[in-house]
């Protein structure tokens, strides 16, 4: 027994970072499959590319810092960043933008702040915003969901599009792409259409965007799995979705011709994905329970504000980054009442 004195407790720890990350990756599977179903192979190719770049970037930085790259890669956090990034960007994104995004996310946003656990901003979302601001066209060229596309891209065609930027012969961009429902709504509203008229568009489904609503549904399933496995708590997702719903509900009540049903907000774009998988990133979110409620509600409200009146059709990434900045302050002002510090049944 010549080991260093180890402080109590002495039992095997029950949680592990890599297991938590693995659970997150597992929970993403249904949504990713649904998304592949609607938008084709591009997503899977992007995930593979992003994962490779992220792991290489992580390993490179660790080697440069003179540390073993295996511990950093082994915690699987770079993979989670890569997958979330790949899900957020269009499935046609040129490979070098994915590379740029991953370098930005892993090297600048994560490692230059000290690596895992020290980054104030969500790396995947920071990279997304960086690319969206720098390459707006590439970042907003979405494929039409499979049910609407005149031509579905095969695996090789997707690969060619991503690696070389070339469409299969005989196809033009209009044949394969379509505006996202949020984009469509935004543009049409700006042109003076009413929600009633916009809803006639084939891009609209039952309550959200066509295809998108089902993808959101599968991500919701993954999110519930995370709740069940206690990887996340309900506070951030519920607060964020409620924040979005309440804002959207008030706006819809006041002016239904300019604002869609609140459920449309929930089941379009990245609201569900953001609520369960992005806003809940523990490193960059609030840690106190009360703080998490404020943090989540803030994201929901900002998402609505940007969607309704801002310059971008979707806003989860911006909203998350904005609340990331506020998280330490919120945490400071929402400390729970410690045991024996008043409240409750106290000394009479």
């Amino acid at each position, binding site marked *: *027994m010549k080991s260093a004195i180890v402080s109590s407790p*002495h039992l095997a720890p029950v*949680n592990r970072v890599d297991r938590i990350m693995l659970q997150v990756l597992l929970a993403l599977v249904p949504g990713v499959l649904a998304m592949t179903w609607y938008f084709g192979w591009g997503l899977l190719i992007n995930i593979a590319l992003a994962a490779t770049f992220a792991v290489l970037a992580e390993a490179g930085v660790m080697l440069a810092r003179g540390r073993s790259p295996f511990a950093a890669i082994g915690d699987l956090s770079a993979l989670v960043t890569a997958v979330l990034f790949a899900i957020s960007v269009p499935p046609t994104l040129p490979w070098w933008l994915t590379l740029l995004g991953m370098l930005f996310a892993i090297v600048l946003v994560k490692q230059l702040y000290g690596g895992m656990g020290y980054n104030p901003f969500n790396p995947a979302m920071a990279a997304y915003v960086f690319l969206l601001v720098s390459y707006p066209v590439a970042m907003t060229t979405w494929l039409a969901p499979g049910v609407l596309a005149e031509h579905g891209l095969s695996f090789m065609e997707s690969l060619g599009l991503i690696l070389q930027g070339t469409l299969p012969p005989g196809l033009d961009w209009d044949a394969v792409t379509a505006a996202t429902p949020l984009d469509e709504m935004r543009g049409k509203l700006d042109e003076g259409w009413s929600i009633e008229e916009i809803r006639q568009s084939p891009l609209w489904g039952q309550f959200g965007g066509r295809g998108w609503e089902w993808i959101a549904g599968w991500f919701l399933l993954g999110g519930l799995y995370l709740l069940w496995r206690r990887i996340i*708590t309900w506070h951030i997702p519920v607060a964020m979705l409620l924040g979005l719903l309440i804002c959207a509900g008030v706006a819809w009540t006041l002016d239904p011709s300019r604002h869609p049903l609140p459920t449309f907000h929930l089941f379009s774009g990245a609201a569900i994905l953001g609520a369960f998988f992005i806003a809940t990133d*523990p490193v960059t979110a609030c*840690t106190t329970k009360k703080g998490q409620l404020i943090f989540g509600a803030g994201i929901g409200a900002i998402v609505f504000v940007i969607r309704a009146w801002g310059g971008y059709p979707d806003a989860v990434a911006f909203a998350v980054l904005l609340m990331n900045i506020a998280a330490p302050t919120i945490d400071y002002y929402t400390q729970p009442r*410690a*045991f024996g510090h008043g409240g409750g049944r106290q*000394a009479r």
Partner: protein
Amino acid sequence: MERAVSLDSSLGTGARSIPSGRRLWRFHGGVHVPDEKSLSNAEPVTSAPLPKRLIIPLQQHIGAQARPLVRIGERVLKGQMIAEPNGYISAPVHASSSGILVAIEPHPVAHASGLSALCALIETDGEDAWAELPEPLVHYAQLDPTLVRERIRWAGVVGMGGASFPTSVKLNPGTDRQIQTLVINGAECEPYITCDDRLMRERAAHVLEGVRVMDHLLGVSQVLIGIEDNKPEAIESMRDALAETDMPGYTEIVPIPTLYPSGGEKQLIRILTGREVPSSGIPAHIGIVCQNVGTAAAVADAVLEGRPLISRIITLTGRAIAAPQNLDARVGTPAGELIAHCGGYRESARRLICGGPMMGFELRHPQAPITKATNCLLALTRAESPDPGPTLACIRCGRCAEACPAKLLPQQMYWYARAKDLDRIQDYHLFDCIECGCCAQVCPSRIPLVQYYRYAKTEIWAREQERRKADQARARHEAKRVRLERQEQERQARLRRQKAALDAKPADGKAGKQALIEAARRRAAAKKAAAGRSGAQSADRP
């Protein structure tokens, strides 16, 4: 968190919950850990053999170290006081068998620091001859409580749940504080440990006798005995014993849900009464006193049998021990001998721990003796206590905060402890941390959080001490300066007075002075005249 749980829908090992009509409260957080009680709770307590040499630490309690009463080479008898309390918060130490006192010297003891402390070494003679013991106080109820407390103090009874605070002090809350509730702690929430379980199963009536004595001393209106519901036999046995006494009117055996750390004093009080002991306060501040069941038994020994506290039940367990069991062992028995008595190690122990796996500390010297507070020797195998592996960065997941029974933010305290920001960490209520280890147990990054808090506390204490010293030095310096100033002022005043006195004397004024001057001038003139005359005379000579 005000939610009450009824035991029928209890959390934890619900299947074994025992219904109770009493409303229970929840404390925040806590962790479910495999309790591992079945390793050692099946067999009755047996007596450990008399060791050849007893090593009895003079400090087995919180407070001042006891002062030795015997000379080296002297023969001591079993139960003889060999060191007396040194101050109010202190406790005596008794010889736990007869023999020759061969030395009083530093010896490795069971302490987290691994350091040595002053111990009385007794070569036992095997006769185990008792010293003359005081009269049992069977009719304690008719006696002055001070006498009974004096007896408990004489017997060296200290809290046997681990903190080892002198019991007589705790049973003397003062006349200005009314104690309404006596809480008896039979929770035994640490995994593996079963000594209280066995005690309650085998000596329930005796425990209750002790409770009755304590009740008499405190004059409480209710007694609540909390036992975790993973000990149904102990609950049963205590209930049966209670029915035989005159106490059921105000005493209740309350099964509580198994959830670590329900046996923490503050947590147990919360569960049973819903009340929170104020921060940096003691239970007596809210009219509650909490005592362990082992302490109750020791009080019964002292008052009803006149026996001092010289032995205790200790659990030897862990999968590395050949035959885990509970032993009635003499205080001062080397840990190694008890382990040998249990058949030694089955496989090499990864760690030998004094106390439970959640809060115990590693015993670096297997020959360190057990004390009044040692409730468990735990030998863990590599599988039970694997190497924690490299510590990863905190990912702020907040599991620690969810598990913290003191409702703290452990991850924030960790940041500030690492940054040595000793002021900010106190803003986060560091000193409300009870070091239960829940946070570290659930940390996915394997950060030894408790170690950081202990470090921060020690640093703050050291800083406080430095500050106190500096304050003293400053006060002394200031006092000196004031003294010198005063002396200087006094000197000045004296001089002024003298001068004033001088000035005051020639009250007849200038005239006197003039007269003096005039007189001096006349004297000088006369002298001159005389000199002139004598010169003339000499000139007159030829």
